[in-house]
């Protein structure tokens, strides 16, 4: 799959078709559809069963999932598949025979882990352990759900006493996974924001007040313009983060991640506002994106990330 003529947009379009196909299906059926379309192996090498694409292709693919409001651990599957590529479990994940969730806070040593989603249906959960991470058999731990942010796709806490480890990641491998996680979750958030923006735009164009579409109102148009600006900034920042500079040096991902999450929250919240009462209902799905992005935000403590960016800047200046 090293044909240079294939552009990221083409993959994103194909991914979009698969995600649309998966919509409304059960967890197992979604897994089958997404696996069939190769989505879990996007950033896994071809010789290990993947599509052999780099992260710059991963960004638009995951963004489409955000835009189409896929409620499935796609990013988690992609990350664990990539981290365990070449191992049996990695192959099983690429193929959709197994599924993995990730708990982003806590650790095996602390005895509990938090900020995981989609745990109930997953076979495995990845949890920090020492400097690296451990992939646990989900059934070996005790799972508690916290539905306050999202009753449909709650956040989970895991009690890890006696949990069975099925694979481990080195410190280096776990650090790589976290880097990729910030890129892909950032892309998911950017896509979720873009989807909210598109919804708001068509709602505003169709909604007439005092004889004109609401989208002709300057307050609305300026809000929409800010959404667009922030959407473009998120994507540009993420693509920049994964590219090397002129001297071949790698870049940090934190600013792009924090930017994408913050921008996405702003955009979705504004899109809800622009929808008026309708934005506030359960039927219009904007709230799903808000919950999903806020779960990422909480898992990585974006506020804390911003603070650490500041501290690092101060230390380096």
């Amino acid at each position: 799959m090293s044909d240079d003529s294939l552009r990221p947009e083409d993959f994103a379009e194909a991914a979009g078709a698969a995600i649309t196909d998966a919509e409304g299906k059960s967890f197992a059926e979604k897994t089958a559809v997404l696996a069939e379309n190769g989505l879990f192996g996007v950033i896994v090498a071809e010789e290990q069963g993947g599509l052999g694409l780099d992260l710059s292709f991963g960004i638009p693919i995951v963004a489409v999932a955000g835009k189409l409001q896929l409620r499935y651990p796609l990013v988690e599957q992609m990350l664990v598949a990539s981290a365990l590529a070449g191992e049996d479990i990695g192959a099983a994940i690429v193929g959709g025979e197994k599924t993995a969730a990730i708990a982003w806070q806590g650790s095996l040593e602390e005895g509990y882990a938090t900020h995981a989603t989609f745990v109930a249906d997953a076979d495995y959960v990845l949890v920090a352990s020492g400097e690296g991470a451990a992939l646990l058999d989900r059934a070996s731990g005790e799972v508690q759900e916290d539905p306050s942010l999202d009753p449909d796709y709650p956040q989970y806490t895991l009690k890890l006493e006696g949990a069975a480890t099925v694979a481990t990641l080195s410190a280096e491998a776990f650090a790589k996974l976290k880097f990729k996680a910030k890129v892909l979750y950032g892309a998911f958030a950017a896509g979720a924001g873009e989807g909210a923006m598109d919804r708001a735009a068509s709602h505003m164009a169709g909604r007439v007040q005092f004889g004109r579409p609401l989208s002709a109102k300057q307050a609305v148009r300026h809000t929409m313009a800010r959404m667009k600006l922030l959407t473009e900034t998120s994507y540009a920042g993420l693509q920049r983060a994964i590219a090397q500079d002129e001297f071949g040096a790698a870049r940090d991902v934190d600013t792009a991640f924090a930017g994408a999450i913050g921008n996405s929250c702003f955009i979705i919240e504004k899109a809800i506002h622009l929808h008026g009462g309708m934005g506030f209902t359960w039927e219009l799905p904007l709230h799903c994106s808000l919950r999903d992005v806020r779960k990422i935000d909480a898992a990585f403590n974006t506020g804390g990330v911003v603070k650490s960016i500041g501290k690092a800047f101060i230390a380096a200046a």
Partner: protein
Amino acid sequence: MTYNIEVAHPDPATSRSAYRAHAREWLRANLPSSMRADSVDYKTPSLNECRDWEEAMYRAGLAGMTWPKEYGGYGLTLREHLAVNKEIGALMMPESVGSVGKELAGPIIMAVGTEEQKQEFLPKILAMKNYWCQGFSEPEAGSDLVRLRTRAVEENGNWRINGQKIWTSGAMKADYCLLLTRTGTVADKHKGLLMFAVPMNTHGIRVVPIKSIDGKESFAEVFFDDVVVPDSARLGKPDEGWSAAIRVLSIERATNRMYRPWRFEAELKMLVAAFKSDPELAKLLEDGYYQRRIGQIATEIDGLKGLIEQAVDQMAGGAPIGARGSLNKLFWSETHQAFATFAYEMVSQIKPTASAEALRAKKHFTTAYLFARAESIYAGVSEVQLDIIAQRILNLPKDL
């Protein structure tokens, strides 16, 4: 639950603090901890529990302060209303379940109702015998009533009503709907608008709840299919009811929910206290970022208190209230919405091993964050408030 309602109501003339002290004392003595959102004993209260509590507040002299005595009120002034609201705000008690009656239907009936209607409806609103819901908004008509479609046609001394309302909060529990209709067609634009007090058990009314972002069903769509009501259900003459409603709404926007900044302060206290209750979380409060944000929020709360106290002073001095309710609503909704986001960011970091107070706060402020999405929308979206301020207070030329 029984409350101590056999309590003497103070005469405000005795001292400036008399009424506020009474409210403070009674509320603190009587509000069950299970109804305090900042208590670890908190349990979402049932409709009946809320009803009983609000009735007890009324009996204790803490509702209907400004309503005339002949309709069950206490014949006092906005100053006592404000004093009570400060103490209502200071406790994290449930939102009123009778607010549409007390803040909207009651004042409108007082303005345009017949004496019979006043006698029939007003005392029951205060005594929590009747719940009301508000039937103004329609799918195609929000602030812009030109597109209002629900129609009332006179037939042999009755009125036949057909149409659909939306965003009708509390419709599922309501006994009456304060219903806005038109007698003619949409071509009449703002003319021919007519209000009714429609019993919700009338044949032909169908209520379809709307699930809102916080997972509650506090709003509904209400369908009126050949609903027939007697002429006695009419509130005022065509146009009269609605123009009274506009006046009332503008006063109400300035006087209702005066407890907001004091409640806002109570919420900020709850948030901070929850973090102080847990040694690990308490460290966060030593971070200058949180200190400064909290200082900023406290500043906004005091500004809002100032706006409300000033409005009461001016209205007590006989000044027209004009459009200043828009100032309060806008300032509150924007600062409170930002606070809710800030609070959510704080509580989203609370771990399952944290103190009970912290876990209570996590639950409370997560829901509050979601619910706050509506604060810039309901009761007039922010853009409408800004337009009102620009046009009616600053007299800028109207936007096209």
